[in-house]
């Protein structure tokens, strides 16, 4: 299927979009819409074309659907701090009516946006001209009923709720509950529970801030609600642990129900062991049975029923282990890679450097490295698998570790919930790939 090695990998390059530095990518629940957030506080939404009956060899392409400025830079005068407008996360709400809703957040403020289409407008007012000017009432001699007439499609985004002033530290995650009424937001030390309708208060459910800040040893790095159990959520830490909490147990979920932690391999100890064990992303599988975590060098799949070690571990770029000092110097070791599941939870994907991204098939245990770059891929060409040569003789077509470009990193990837379409964000470009449908 997707990673069958008998034939070449049939992944087509469909689409490229250049933007400001992309900071988040997210498909909506149907996969028809794809939202990206960038460093400039903008959100760009792409929509999949409806399937063209004449072109059966591919699904629809994604075109720009809506663009709006979600967050602006702010200044906290009390602390003399500038608040970046960069969009850290976008999460879609399930569609309930004709409009679409999404949550977008920067470091401090979460906003609920309504994206709606307008393709009709009323015409034939009695007191107004078509351009909006008011008519002189004395000139009205007859009455008519205004009617809706079609117009060019207009997509409007309007902020419906603004959830502010609840986070002292930088927000790193938002996650919508399966009850579709509440959501959580997590910063470095606290997690808050919100109701989508209520903006003036939130409920603190996790607080790991020590009484004495000098005793701080770990921070929260990501949090997510369970996809099916509305009382369950997990949060990951900079120490490489994941805590699963049940909101029924107590109001403040400082005590976890489960603690997932793998003992460290002592042979791998170095100055940077702690940094590379910090978890940068946690994602539940669609089934809710598993969760996946991403640390600097690997992806781990955990069974929620087993806390002492992951059930699967995939090395993303183990060849970097000997380069940690250089990566520390150039700050790359702090890069926060995300990871994602495919719709059937059989394949997981994550990004790497040199614009490489990796997929791991959990069933066949095969993995593949692909590159997202315009130079190498014209639209509709099949992607060639890549290989990094860690040491020794470099074969033809292999790339040596030292020639990797660490400025080209893929931190954000997303997989269509139903089809084999993936969105991969390099620094400035968004790529959309799909597998070839024969």
């Amino acid at each position, binding site marked *: 299927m997707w990673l069958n090695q008998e034939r070449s990998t049939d992944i087509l390059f469909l689409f490229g979009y250049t933007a400001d530095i992309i900071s988040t990518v997210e498909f909506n629940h149907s996969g028809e819409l794809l939202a990206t957030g960038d460093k400039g506080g903008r959100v760009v939404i792409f929509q999949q074309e409806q399937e063209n009956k004449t072109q059966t060899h591919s699904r629809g392409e994604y075109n720009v659907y809506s663009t709006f400025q979600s967050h602006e830079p702010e200044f906290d005068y009390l602390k003399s701090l*500038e608040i970046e407008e960069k969009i850290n996360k976008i999460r879609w709400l399930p569609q309930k009516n004709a409009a679409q809703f999404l949550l977008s957040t920067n470091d401090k403020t979460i906003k609920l946006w309504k994206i709606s289409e307008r393709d009709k407008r009323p015409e034939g007012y009695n007191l107004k001209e078509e351009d909006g000017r008011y008519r002189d009432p004395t000139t009205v001699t007859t009455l008519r009923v205004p009617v809706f007439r079609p117009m060019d499609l207009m997509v409007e985004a309007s902020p419906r709720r603004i959830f502010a002033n609840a986070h002292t530290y930088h927000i790193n995650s938002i996650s919508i509950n399966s009850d579709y009424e509440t959501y959580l937001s997590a910063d470095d030390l606290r997690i808050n529970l919100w109701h989508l309708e209520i903006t003036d208060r939130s409920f603190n459910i996790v607080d790991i801030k020590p009484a004495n800040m000098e005793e701080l040893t770990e921070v929260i790095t990501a949090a997510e609600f369970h996809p099916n159990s509305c009382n369950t959520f997990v949060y990951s830490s900079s120490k490489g642990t994941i805590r699963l909490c049940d909101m029924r147990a107590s109001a403040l979920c400082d005590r976890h129900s489960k603690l997932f932690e793998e003992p460290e391999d002592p042979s791998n100890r170095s100055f*940077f062991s702690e*940094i590379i064990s910090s978890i940068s992303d946690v994602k539940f599988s669609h089934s809710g049975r598993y969760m996946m975590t991403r640390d600097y060098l690997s992806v781990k799949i955990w069974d929620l029923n087993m806390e002492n070690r992951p059930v699967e571990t995939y090395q993303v770029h183990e060849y970097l282990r000997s380069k940690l000092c250089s990566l520390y110097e150039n700050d790359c070791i702090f890069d926060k890679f995300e990871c994602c599941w495919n719709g059937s939870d059989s394949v997981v994907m994550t990004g790497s450097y040199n614009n490489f991204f990796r997929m791991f098939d959990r069933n066949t245990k095969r993995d593949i490295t692909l590159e997202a770059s315009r130079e190498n891929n014209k639209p509709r060409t099949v992607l060639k698998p890549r290989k990094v040569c860690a040491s020794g003789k470099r074969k033809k077509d292999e790339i040596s570790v030292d020639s990797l470009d660490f400025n080209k990193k893929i931190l954000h990837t997303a997989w269509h919930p139903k089809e084999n379409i993936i969105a991969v964000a390099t620094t400035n470009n968004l790529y959309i790939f799909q597998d070839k449908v024969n």
Partner: protein
Amino acid sequence: MEFKLEAHRIVSISLGKIYNSRVQRGGIKLHKNLLVSLVLRSARQVYLSDPCLGAPGAGGPPQSPPPQQQQQPAGDPTSGWGEALPRDSSMEQDPEPAGASSAASELPALPLALGKRPPEGSPPPRAEAVPEAPRRRVEAAEAERGGGGEGAPEGPPRARHCCCRRLGCPPHGAPRADCGCRQRQDDGAPPPPVCPRKRSASGAGGGPAGCLASGGSPVKKPRRDSEEQPGEEEEMETGNVANLITIFGSSFSGLLRKTPGGGREDEDGEEEESPRGAEAEEPGPMYCDKPVLRNLNPWSTAIVAF
């Protein structure tokens, strides 16, 4: 030996990162600074335990600088240093020889700058004296002495094991005096005697600032005294990192807001990542003109201004 150099290099880089994080947009990133502080601690431990230091045993050396240096802080009349130097007596009591004269010689750099005195009688500061390192080394050494010779503020012998993993607490050694794992000594943060700068009377951050320049973690006392202290808690500043961060001015009433942390000073002019270019408060001739002290000057200037 190469471990020590590597460790030192990592310490330098880490301090540069912490400084840079202060000036970047969006405020200090707690997560990144915590990770950097963990690396700093690891590097420091390696630095301390490296036998090439010449000290007897791990972490042994630096608690007792050579006598001439002891005199300096003891007699340091630095105005504004509210506290006496309780450590001085402990220093002299210290049975361990100042084996690592090399390590110890890093310490004088601090009182020298602090005291604004000519550094006569003190050994030349070491090239790679990262201000933080000597401070911590002193503390570790003091801690490892198990309280003996520590002087009154340290109280009874400490637990052998530090139950927390705070920066500055060697995991397998005795905890720092101010380790939260044990009963805190309220009367004294454990400033090493050689860093009187720490005791900024105004406590408005000059203390922590200076303290950090001299090495970081034990700035608690001045920080407590600082009127900004209560406000700091909610200002995204960790303790360990806060010590490092406060030096970079966020609580220092703006005076040093843009000045670097004096984080590094390599005598040989080793390229440092940060603060040099940003130094705004080059002091002047009153200070020892050793290049190693150049980076410490902004603190002194600020302190003088106070």
